[in-house]
């Protein structure tokens, strides 16, 4: 141990003596918990290749926005994109990194995974406490051939504020005017009914334990825990299963080019295969980098992740951004992120 410290000190000393471009500092970031596993995987591989580490604190999207605004980190991360006005007022830009989906999970005796069909308005009525039993005519009509018992519906939602809740409630608001009016969309909302679990773990534990319950979790979580998921009807009127392909389809069909500041929710996108409750997670950076070196390291990291991180992402059940969007994001980097008026990336 002592020896290692000694070597490190000597190396650092040698570098300063040579006037080298300082020791390779770690990149600091903070924010959303949803992409934290994939950022950790990327960081591990990146460190092995380049020696530059990433210190990412998964403190939640709200914390990520607060920290990048206060400039205590080199980048912030949020599952909820900031709208162009907010971006402009705090001098930030944002870009998406990976895509995930929100999946309704349920526990009804006799109903197999992927068997139950649901639509957006129906889901809203269930989560509003309007539909109280599983054998309600509205559900039965949509699911001919599925045996639905007359057991009461228990709604399970996230208790903690989360990007997942933001996506889910925004989707319900888009599909059901009554939901928008009565509940609305946010990281946390006033739920009309049901009980709240802490995190994806809490929700899935409650769903597993409660007969007749329905909740919503991140796709990766539903898949890894083999929860019973539902099919959803998409904008094209087709019922689709939540799969990586269905999330990709939603992302590919979205019109990123006409979305200023990448302010785009992938909810209810066109396309026969698109999963309706899809969302990207975003990185926030200051347009004007006070420390060009630091900004360049962040961009180099994400550039590397876009080039060689797709497999790592899909091994964790995240979906990579389509190639066309990656190209567009790179253009945004070189044209918008500057230090002293000069592009951070070009100076490289």
């Amino acid at each position, binding site marked *: 141990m002592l020896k290692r410290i000694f070597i490190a000190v000597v190396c650092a000393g040698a570098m300063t003596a040579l006037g080298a471009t300082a020791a390779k500092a770690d990149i600091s970031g903070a924010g959303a918990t949803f992409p934290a596993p994939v950022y950790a995987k990327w960081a591990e591989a990146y460190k092995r290749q380049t020696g530059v580490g990433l210190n990412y604190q998964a*403190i*939640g*999207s*709200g*914390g990520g*926005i*607060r920290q990048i605004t206060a400039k205590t980190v080199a980048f912030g991360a949020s599952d909820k994109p900031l709208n162009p006005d907010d971006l402009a007022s705090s001098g930030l830009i944002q870009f998406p990194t990976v895509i995930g989906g929100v999946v309704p999970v349920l526990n009804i005796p006799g109903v197999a995974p992927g068997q139950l069909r649901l639509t957006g308005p129906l889901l809203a009525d269930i989560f509003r406490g309007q539909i109280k039993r599983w054998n309600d005519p509205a559900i039965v009509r949509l699911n001919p051939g599925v045996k639905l018992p007359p057991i009461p519906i*228990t709604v399970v939602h996230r*208790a*903690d*504020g*989360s990007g997942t809740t933001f996506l889910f409630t925004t989707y319900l608001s888009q599909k059901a005017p009554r939901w928008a009016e009565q*509940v*609305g*969309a*946010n*990281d*946390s*909302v*006033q*739920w009309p009914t*049901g*009980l*709240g*679990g*802490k995190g994806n773990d*809490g929700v899935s*534990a*409650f769903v597993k*334990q*409660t007969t007749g*319950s329905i909740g919503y979790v991140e796709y990766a979580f539903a898949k890894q825990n083999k929860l019973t998921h539902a099919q959803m009807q998409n904008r094209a009127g087709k019922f689709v299963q939540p799969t990586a392909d269905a999330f990709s389809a939603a992302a590919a069909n979205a019109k990123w080019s006409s979305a200023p500041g990448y302010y785009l929710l992938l909810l209810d996108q066109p396309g026969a295969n698109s999963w309706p409750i899809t969302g990207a997670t975003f990185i926030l950076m200051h347009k004007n980098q006070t420390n060009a070196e630091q900004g360049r390291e962040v961009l180099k990291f994400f550039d590397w992740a876009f080039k060689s991180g797709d497999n790592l992402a899909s091994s964790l059940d995240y979906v990579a951004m389509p190639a066309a969007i990656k190209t567009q994001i790179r253009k945004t980097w070189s044209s918008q992120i500057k230090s002293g008026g000069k592009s951070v990336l070009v100076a490289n």
Partner: protein
Amino acid sequence: MTLTADASPGLKAPRAARPKGASFDPIFQALCFSAATALLAALGGVIVTLAIGGWPAFQAMGLGFITSSEWNPVTDVYGAAGPLVGTILTAALALAFSLPVAFGVAIFLVEFCPTVLRRPIGTAVELLAGIPSIVYGMWGLFVFAPFFANHVQMPLMMAAPPGSLMEKLVTGIPNGTGILAAAIILAIMILPFMAAMLRELLLTVPPQVRESAYGLGATRLEVVSSVTLPYVRSGAIGAVMLGLGRALGETMAVTFIIGNSHGFPASIFDSGSTIASTIANEFTEATSVAHTSSLLALGLMLFVITFAVLGLARLLIGRSQH
């Protein structure tokens, strides 16, 4: 001053003969004084920070912040009545469950336990007190809740006659979460804490006191109830109040099992929330000023409640000493 000097002239005389180390006394005094003031300053800092941070919430919502149970981050309307009631209810229930057991454990360890077992059981109690609360929360959610649902909630809900008060009291979702389940987990958490403190207190009873009671022909029950317990009464009140304080502020374990809904709990199996669980759930993702400020205001209220509980304990201890 002169009076004391006159009363004990011996104190004045050996001044010259003071031990060398005595010159360190002022330094020691200064150190102790600064430790005490630093604590007070930290306490004051917490209050001021919470008050400043929470002020916009009190200003916007007024008295409604305490009386309303609406908690809506979308419209930025916040009322703390739900978490407030949940906090007091769970802590009071937890204390009611754990107090008799804690006294039982402590009295058994001191009065009845064979000497060989005294140390292992005592250590086990202290170990229980050292388990992190998140572990209790996970255990509560994955082990206790399913058991509680199947063996307590369901039987009670089935047994309740329709339309009765009992039925109202036990309605809820039979999955093992809610106010009562949270109170039980809390009780388990504060139990070892209180038992260990009570044991220490009972051990301070001088053996002569106990022996003379036995010498007068008192039974064990009589010795415990009329000699040792009254002897440690003020300390015991302090121990219980510290347990209550811990129950009021406990966060993670409760968050896992209380069900986290912001309204008033309608029954003992209904899901609710506490001040601490609300803060833990929402602080990371609170972005609007009103939301953050409401959470800080909740923190201030918890501070006030805990302060009142400890103040009450002081009052009781003071009275029992007279």
